[in-house]
């Protein structure tokens, strides 16, 4: 259907046409997406977190939270302290909007400091996954045969892979920091379920007439894959990217919660610190809520938000789900 549009504006540069088309497609899809309340909600949550982490934190860190040479209070998320409070953890106050942790560090600063890192982890892992998944899915679908069988069986395996147990054992052998974690999660899940889904989508695209015509006009196989098939499975890839972000952030939180990652600060680590110091037991749970609720809610919200966006996109990508 998109090829029809091309005939009208032959004199414009192909790039410009593409941009226009993309814009138009985006506007249409946005309309569908915005009908999904859950998707829009997710998007808002993600935007809020992004602003908090990428804009609010740097501003705060360089203004009100700026360390002084002989200051009484430091808002550093890892080495912070507050000499004005005697008995940490302290409940929320004007100085510490979300209180301090058992070592006297500002909980809000820790929360905000970790946000961009969680984004980076989730998005990097998801990008790797989607990249591998898209390439393998389309190649498998296009060429079929042994390649196809191999990757599909591999995907079966990865789907059943006890992922977190594996990461735990791995963490005992190598030092896992955020970058490595993103790479590992991205690599392993790239060979998993996403390849199956993208392959079946690519199979649908593969038999479309415009592929045939491209073949007839002498396009090479890699050219067809890159220029015709991949763009058509892209929306689905994007959808899966959202679910993978959720998975990556969740995995990080679980590993940090068990104290297995080599990182300075993260939401999971905040809960780990509170738990090992004994603030998440019995009546302490209600009494010291600021130690576990903010990071726990942040993990849940951000994971949930990406999942919401995924569900919203699902309605865009899978038109059959749309309400008639």
């Amino acid at each position: 259907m998109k090829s029809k549009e091309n005939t009208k504006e032959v004199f414009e540069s192909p790039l410009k046409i593409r941009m226009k088309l993309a814009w138009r497609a985006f506007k249409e899809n946005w309309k569908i997406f915005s009908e999904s309340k859950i998707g829009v909600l997710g998007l808002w949550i993600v935007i809020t977190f992004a602003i908090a982490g990428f804009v609010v934190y740097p501003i705060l860190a360089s203004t009100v939270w700026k360390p002084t040479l002989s200051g009484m209070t430091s808002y550093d998320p890892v080495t912070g302290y507050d000499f004005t409070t005697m008995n940490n953890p302290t409940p929320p106050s004007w100085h510490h909007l979300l209180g301090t942790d058992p070592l006297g560090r500002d909980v809000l600063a820790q929360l905000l400091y970790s946000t961009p890192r969680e984004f980076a982890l989730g998005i990097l892992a998801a990008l790797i996954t989607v990249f591998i998944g898209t390439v393998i899915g389309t190649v498998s679908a296009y060429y079929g045969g042994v390649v196809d069988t191999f990757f599909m069986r591999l995907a079966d395996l990865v789907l059943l892979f006890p992922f977190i147990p594996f990461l735990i054992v791995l963490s005992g052998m190598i030092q896992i920091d955020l970058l490595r974690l993103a790479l590992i999660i991205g690599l392993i899940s790239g060979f998993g379920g996403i390849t199956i889904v993208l392959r079946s989508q690519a199979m649908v695209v593969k038999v479309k007439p415009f592929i045939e015509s491209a073949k007839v006009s002498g396009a090479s196989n890699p050219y067809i894959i890159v220029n015709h098939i991949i763009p058509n499975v892209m929306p689905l890839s994007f959808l899966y990217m959202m679910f993978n972000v959720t998975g990556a952030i969740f995995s990080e939180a679980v590993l940090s919660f068990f104290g297995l990652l080599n990182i300075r600060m993260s939401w999971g680590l905040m809960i780990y610190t509170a738990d090992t110091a004994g603030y998440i037991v019995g009546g302490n749970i209600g009494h010291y809520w600021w130690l576990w609720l903010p990071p726990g809610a942040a993990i849940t919200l951000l994971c949930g938000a990406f999942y919401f966006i995924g569900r919203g996109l699902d309605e865009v990508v899978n038109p059959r789900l749309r309400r008639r």
Partner: protein
Amino acid sequence: MLKYIGKRLVQIFILLVVYVAVVFFLLHSMPGGIKAMLTTNPNLTPQARDSILHAFGLDQSLWVQFLTYLKNIFTLNLGVSFSFYPTPVWSIIAERLPRTIFLFATATLISFFIGFSSGKSLAWKRGKVSEYVATIIGVITYTVFTPLLIFVLIWFFGAYLGILPINQFLNPDLWVNTTFDAQTVFLYLLLTVSIVGAAILFSFIVAQKVSHRVKTKKIILYTSTAIASALSIFWWAISPYGIYGADIIWHMVLPVLSVAIISYAGTMLVMRDSMLETIKEDFITTARAKGLPDKVVRDKHAARTAMLPVITNFVLSMGFVVSGGLITESLFSWPGMGMTLLNATLAKDYPLASGALIFTGIFVLFAHLVVDIVYAFLDPRIRY
């Protein structure tokens, strides 16, 4: 049918070999891997070190090592644990595997049925407030940070209400004068569950063959289920293990609840989507047009067709459930496989950690196989 099962068995076997290979090569290529650990562990006597090196075949080339390792796995020779030295890894796993299997078999079945039935009614209530509420709750429990949920459950049921046991898998006061192992009771419990399950499956098949009338089928199915359950309850009641089995089940309530809450939403959401697609199909419109009651259309026509992707999803979520189970086990003091894996990793006990990892994988693969076979029996559309 047999041919199909055979084919699946071969596939699972190949997957298992590949899985072991992946785990093996990853663990052995790591800088702090098994060999480095073995040669630097000061606790081991030279003989012990040599015997473990030999048991793992670490004195040979990598390929030979892999084949030896594979052979060792199938002969259950997984080496000797460091932290439980000189206990063999297999005997530790054999002690803990039944606890995990029993907990998860129960929890997954419960969460599947909750997810299935709630997903069914959700799709039917498309667009209503209750759908939104249920979906939101489902998504929250699906994405909630698991430890957080468990902390709250422990606090609420264990500490605040104080009605459920929270931190062991049995009550020592009750067990202090027993002469048998808790493991024996776990094995009997597992046996009971599988016998009852098999009886239900068998009667279902018989019912399908014997009659085409829905009512007769139902009667056969329900009666046999009731008889199987009654018989097993009777057996437990007269056996010396009765109260101890009940004690274990009582201690399992909260862990099962947690796993169920965490994992039911996955099934529910897929079921809802699947139902939504099915509803639009022509035969549903026909059924409605015939004037059949809504409930009948939903349960008899739509739900059955919509089940296919749900079961697929259910199988695929096994890995996820096992991961969630790891957190559950560690927070509820349930000394199963997840706990073993975590503690072994923290203690740098590589033989035990890798053994536990491999058996977790085998457990998932096996569960996959079981669900596949059950599914093949249930779905008449699969032809072999």
